[in-house]
């Protein structure tokens, strides 16, 4: 993975000092809260419902053991012993104090991390496929480009005061695990007939109150041109994106109002005027970055592990965990291990400091010192020898991290909701806990199969409900929380936006409604048909009938 050189280290240290100065000026009154707010947000510091919240960037979800241990240290020292992994592959601390934040940032800088642009109307942490560099279905590793964009977007002089926040995701695989169609800019590395790889550039996807899927503005972009082309997109947006209404300020509205064709024309006009060679990094810079993403020191192994086969035969729990949580690696004899942060009845994405340390130890011993964070709020050990899987599973079990539910009904995405978030209108975590307990029986979960339930506590859709096979949106009416259900959303390579099935449900009945929907699917599915396949075949009516007949 990427390592800081002197340049990166100096840059991040300077940013810490700059923020320390800003905090000092705020405390002394040289900066008003109104002036300080955008500045602190650009360093990931929110004032939430009960306290400050610091969001730390985990660039494209990649961590090493040392970094994870430092997060555990911060959780213990400055928080209440836990952290929350987010749908943008970041981590949030819920209880820091303002004067401590510069110190926390120092501790992060010590391990080559920061909180730069994890909030604010600027280019946010670039996200990527969590299995990048390890998965068998990849055309090209997207991480060098994600890193290039991380650097380019950091303290960008022209694009730090955009109309609204701006999110970029990149994938290099056939299967989209980064939900690129739901991003302001989605990048897909693909291969042409000549065998070269290049980018497909999508613009204008997003969730929020007006969910939209991105439109392709460039079917093929030479990889070298990436930053120059991004500059053209960003400039058109910075100049013409709406600033009169916060809810219409995302680039998706500009693309929608201009039409994708006209938007593309404006971008291409701007691009034609840009002195691209001045913007683009020299070839040796991309080579420098790519060097860090060279394959790690794999051992030469046979692909099959007799040890693994024997353990799976002996232990059903282990076999089920392998079946759901372990996926194919491109290197013979290795596997990708997904660690569920979704214990039945738990808080999705939360990890205690002890769990973080346990994962760090495992990464160091068994995964070539790499950890990934997924946008589904789970963790990944990307390079585990198949022969080590049993031992890894046992260690995970000892720390309540061995739930075999990846991709199943209890692998729920939930935003912090009104338990933490100042913007939320309803709670999401208790609903996810309730659904998780209801559907938690592992035999039943395995029978139901692939199912993505996603819960947001307000219209901003941080819980990705629009992309949920079953999406739940928490709202408030006359002092009561109620929950709207959408069906048929998906964030993968066949992305779709979920459709509202009808009137909302109270916090007491929403779990019943979800269970009815799941049971209805089980009743009507054909052989091997997943929930999403079945929904796409039969449409919403059978589900509506079942839900509103009984609730």
């Amino acid at each position: 993975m990427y390592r800081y050189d002197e340049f990166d280290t100096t840059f991040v240290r300077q940013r810490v000092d700059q923020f320390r100065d800003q905090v000092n000026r705020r405390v002394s009154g040289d900066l008003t809260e109104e002036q300080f707010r955008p500045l602190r947000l650009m360093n990931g510091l929110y004032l939430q419902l009960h306290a400050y919240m610091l969001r730390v960037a985990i660039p494209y979800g990649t961590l090493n053991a040392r970094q994870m241990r430092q997060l555990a240290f911060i959780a213990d020292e400055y928080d209440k012993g836990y952290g929350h992994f987010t749908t943008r592959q970041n981590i949030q601390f819920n209880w820091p104090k303002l004067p401590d934040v510069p110190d926390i940032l120092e501790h992060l800088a010590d391990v080559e991390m920061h909180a730069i642009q994890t909030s604010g109307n600027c280019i946010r942490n670039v996200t990527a496929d969590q299995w990048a560099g390890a998965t068998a279905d990849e055309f090209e590793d997207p991480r060098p480009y994600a890193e290039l964009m991380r650097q380019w977007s950091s303290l960008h002089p022209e694009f730090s005061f955009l109309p609204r926040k701006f999110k970029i995701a990149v994938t290099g695989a056939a299967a989209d695990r980064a939900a690129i169609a739901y991003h302001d800019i989605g990048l897909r590395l693909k291969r042409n007939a000549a065998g070269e790889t290049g980018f497909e550039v999508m613009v204008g996807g997003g969730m929020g109150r007006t969910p939209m899927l991105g439109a392709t503005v460039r079917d093929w972009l030479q990889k070298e041109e990436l930053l120059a082309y991004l500059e053209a997109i960003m400039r058109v947006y910075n100049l013409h994106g709406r600033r009169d209404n916060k809810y219409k300020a995302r680039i998706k509205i500009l693309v929608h109002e201009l039409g994708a064709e006209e938007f593309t024309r404006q971008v291409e006009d701007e691009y034609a005027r840009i002195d691209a060679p001045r913007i683009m990094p020299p070839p040796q810079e991309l080579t420098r970055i790519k060097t860090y993403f060279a394959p790690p020191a794999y051992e030469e192994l046979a692909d099959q592990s007799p040890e693994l086969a024997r353990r799976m035969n002996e232990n059903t729990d282990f076999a089920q965990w392998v079946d759901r949580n372990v996926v194919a690696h491109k290197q013979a004899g290795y596997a990708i291990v997904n660690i569920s942060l979704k214990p039945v009845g738990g808080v999705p994405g939360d990890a205690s400091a002890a769990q973080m340390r346990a994962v760090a130890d495992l990464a160091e011993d068994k995964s070539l010192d790499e950890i990934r964070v997924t946008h589904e709020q789970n963790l990944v050990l990307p390079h585990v020898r198949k022969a080590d899987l049993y031992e890894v599973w046992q260690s995970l079990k000892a720390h309540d991290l061995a739930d075999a539910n990846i991709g199943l009904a209890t692998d729920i995405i939930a935003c912090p909701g009104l338990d933490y978030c100042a913007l939320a209108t309803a709670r999401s975590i208790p609903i996810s806990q309730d659904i998780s307990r209801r559907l938690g029986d592992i035999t039943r979960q395995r029978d139901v199969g692939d199912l993505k339930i996603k819960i947001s506590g307000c219209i901003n859709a941080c819980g990705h409900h629009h992309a949920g096979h079953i999406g739940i949106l928490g709202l408030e009416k006359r002092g009561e929380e109620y929950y709207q259900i959408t069906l048929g959303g998906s964030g993968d390579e066949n992305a779709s936006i979920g459709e509202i099935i009808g009137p909302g449900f109270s916090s007491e009945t929403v779990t019943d409604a979800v269970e009815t929907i799941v049971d209805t699917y089980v009743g009507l599915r054909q052989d091997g048909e997943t929930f999403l396949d079945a929904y796409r075949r039969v449409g919403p009516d059978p589900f509506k009938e079942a839900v509103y007949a009984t609730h």
Partner: protein
Amino acid sequence: MAKKIKGPQVLTANLLSDGMVVFLGSDGTWRASIDAADMARTEDGAAALEARAAVFVRTNHVVDPYLIAVDDTGSGFVPVAFRERRRIAGPSVQPFFNTQPNGRLAFAG
């Protein structure tokens, strides 16, 4: 000019230093417990609370002060708005993080 108010009001804010939810108390200090808040029943009274809070904004003690409507139960205050009840109750999912002494009283949920 005093703002229109609906029912009894107390004034809340967050401490600049740690973001903690606080209420302007009758003794002129900021209190963690809503029950220790100074309550206004008139528009002038509410405006006076705002004016007192503004001083603490200028001295960088608190941020984002605003009035909230409360029910006076006789033994304490319960916010009318659902969000404000949640705000003083602390995260319901991890009750031991509750920073408010009267969270359970304020939110029967």
